[in-house]
């Protein structure tokens, strides 16, 4: 059994205009020690999918269907104390803006000790010792545990966030745009750190990013989301070397490659569809250059094109499965 099995997950939001189908039937598995990238444009539902796993949805959001099987428990149904026991102990999250995610009036050491004391029966001295170890692990001088978030730079704050996520030795860490607000040099530092930690501690990771090149460097598996659905899913190498879905192809082509030729990358014109009233058929059909009438009427399902490589497009043919 996999560590995490998400099947046909649907997360909707109640809005004034109607029900917004932010995540509309996604499925994937994650084994222990695997890192999966979840990529897509803003508004494609990648963050909502991750928040659903931890059940951190805003008040108007709810899981409308499907199951999230994490270590034998259906997270979609777990509530109350049971849920509280899993959160942060088994699954933790590194939020996007470290600036806003840390409490500005609490010492960073105390902020990290808090979940340890809540989840484990240890005294404060032991917890503090653990925090110092964690600081060393993420590359911060352990003498800084008494400092406040404003005394840290952006990159260091992100390291504090990572230390906090690892506080209770979780099995799964969700990283929501872990490097988006950081400089390239700091980004490289943080990505290297995440990758090393993942291998050292055998962590399962879900890394959410709009930046395919960041995921290319850190993940073994890659899922591409578009308008609430996973349109392509395989190993990262396979997705980059043999993309099947027109959206994936477009997305890869949209990145300028500093090691490649000096050409202006292609763009995907148009905008993602309205998720309150999604169009019938393939959701990408409006922006797709190979779309036919069939695409506007019938929704393609995710099929296995090659072993372990799935894509949802009417125009991909299974090969050798």
């Amino acid at each position: 059994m996999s560590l995490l099995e998400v099947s046909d997950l649907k997360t909707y939001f109640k809005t004034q205009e109607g029900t917004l189908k932010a995540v509309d039937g996604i499925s994937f598995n994650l084994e222990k020690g695997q890192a999966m990238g979840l990529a897509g444009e803003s508004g494609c539902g990648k963050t909502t999918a991750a928040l659903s796993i931890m059940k951190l949805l805003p008040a108007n959001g709810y899981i409308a269907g499907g199951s999230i099987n994490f270590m034998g428990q259906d997270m979609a149904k777990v509530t109350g104390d049971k849920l509280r026991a899993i959160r942060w102990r088994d699954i933790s999250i590194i939020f996007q803006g470290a600036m806003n995610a840390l409490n500005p009036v609490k010492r960073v050491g105390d902020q990290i000790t808090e979940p340890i004391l809540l989840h484990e029966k240890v005294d404060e001295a032991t917890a503090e010792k653990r925090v110092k170890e964690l600081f060393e692990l993420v590359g911060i001088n352990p003498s800084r545990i008494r400092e406040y978030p404003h005394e840290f730079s952006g990159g260091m704050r992100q390291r504090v966030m990572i230390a906090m996520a690892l506080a209770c030795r979780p099995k799964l860490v969700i990283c929501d745009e872990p490097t988006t607000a950081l400089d390239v040099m700091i980004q490289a530092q943080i990505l290297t750190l995440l990758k090393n930690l993942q291998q050292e501690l055998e962590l399962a990771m879900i890394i959410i990013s709009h930046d395919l090149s960041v995921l290319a460097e850190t993940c073994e598996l890659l899922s591409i989301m578009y308008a609430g659905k996973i349109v392509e899913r395989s190993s990262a190498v396979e997705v980059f070397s043999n993309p099947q879905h027109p959206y994936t192809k477009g997305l890869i082509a949209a990145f300028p490659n500093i090691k490649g030729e000096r050409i202006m990358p292609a763009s995907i014109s148009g905008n993602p569809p309205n998720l309150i009233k999604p169009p019938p058929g393939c959701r990408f059909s409006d922006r797709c250059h190979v779309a036919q009438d069939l695409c506007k009427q019938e929704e393609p399902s995710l099929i296995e094109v090659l072993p372990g490589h799935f894509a949802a497009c009417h125009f991909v043919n299974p090969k050798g499965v």
Partner: protein
Amino acid sequence: MSKEIINVDNLQVWFPVRRGFVESLTSKEQRWVKAVDGVSFNIKEREIFCLVGESGCGKTTTGKAILRLVEPTGGKVQYGGEGLTTQQVKDAMEKAVSKKLMTKKEAEECLSGGCVEVTRLPKDKMKLLRQKMQMIFQDPYESLNPKQSIYDIVAEPLVVNNLGQNEADRETRVEKALDDAGLRPPKHFMWRYPHEVSGGQRQRVGIAGALVLQPQFLVADEPVSMLDVSIRSEILKLMLDLREKRGLTYLFITHDLSVAYVFSDRIGIMYLGKIVELGPTEEVIKGPRHPYTKALISVVPKPDPRMKTEKIILKGERPDPAHIPPGCRFHPRCPYAMDKCRVEEPEPMYVSQEHWVTCWLVTGEGKAQ
């Protein structure tokens, strides 16, 4: 060789560090944050010059100082583009002399060179020049007034500069600007509000606002960094089109080397208030000479997992511009730093005709002028 439109010479922007009352009594020395500390470059007609660097390196401040959106502390900026009549230049220079902002001799030099000394112009004459020099801002979500319709946003520069004979004339100018910025048909967008259009379209509104005065030179400050990757190149292509159609010249400011690589003609790498390497884009990216440039290029994520390249990850973060290290300002993070680097600041050395580097490791063909 084509004409230089912008000439920046030893530009400095220093901000005073605010001191507490006690500190102001005990120490006499005023400390400065040297955001821009001696930057020189020129931009030729129809060229895209790109300034690249980490946040806080002074790239945006340089862009703003050229338009005098922040006041430079020292150095010169000259604008030599078209669009101003000789009389207008003359008037502006005379005013500057009468206000004792420059000497008569300097004014004559400027006039004979056919350019305007941007840094010495009186404030009220700056307005005239800003019609020719405009800025595109980074964040299309925050730089547009949510309470104004797109028409009002784009027409505002016309109102401020008292251009356009009547409302109908303004409307045609706004329509043309929106059309040039790719918001077609303009009538469809004109009466909407910023929240009703997508991120990419908002950035087009920002561009239309800069275009409506028919400028010749644009400072584009990270115009695509807030946009989704799938639409970034649309905006970049639009900017290239505008260069063809309107003969625009750009100063493009970005932290993203891969965008700079595909978009610009020449590139300047900034570190802590100074340009450390400058040259034609292809040459700098394919054959970087400064250790900082090499490190920056090595850490750009490549959109391909099969491409494993060695990364030069610099330790630590950039130092505080209020405490610039002595000698070469990069030496505390430089993997190759020598004794000389800690004491003496390197001068620009030319490694090819248009490519210079400030590093003691580089032995060039000669010193910069």
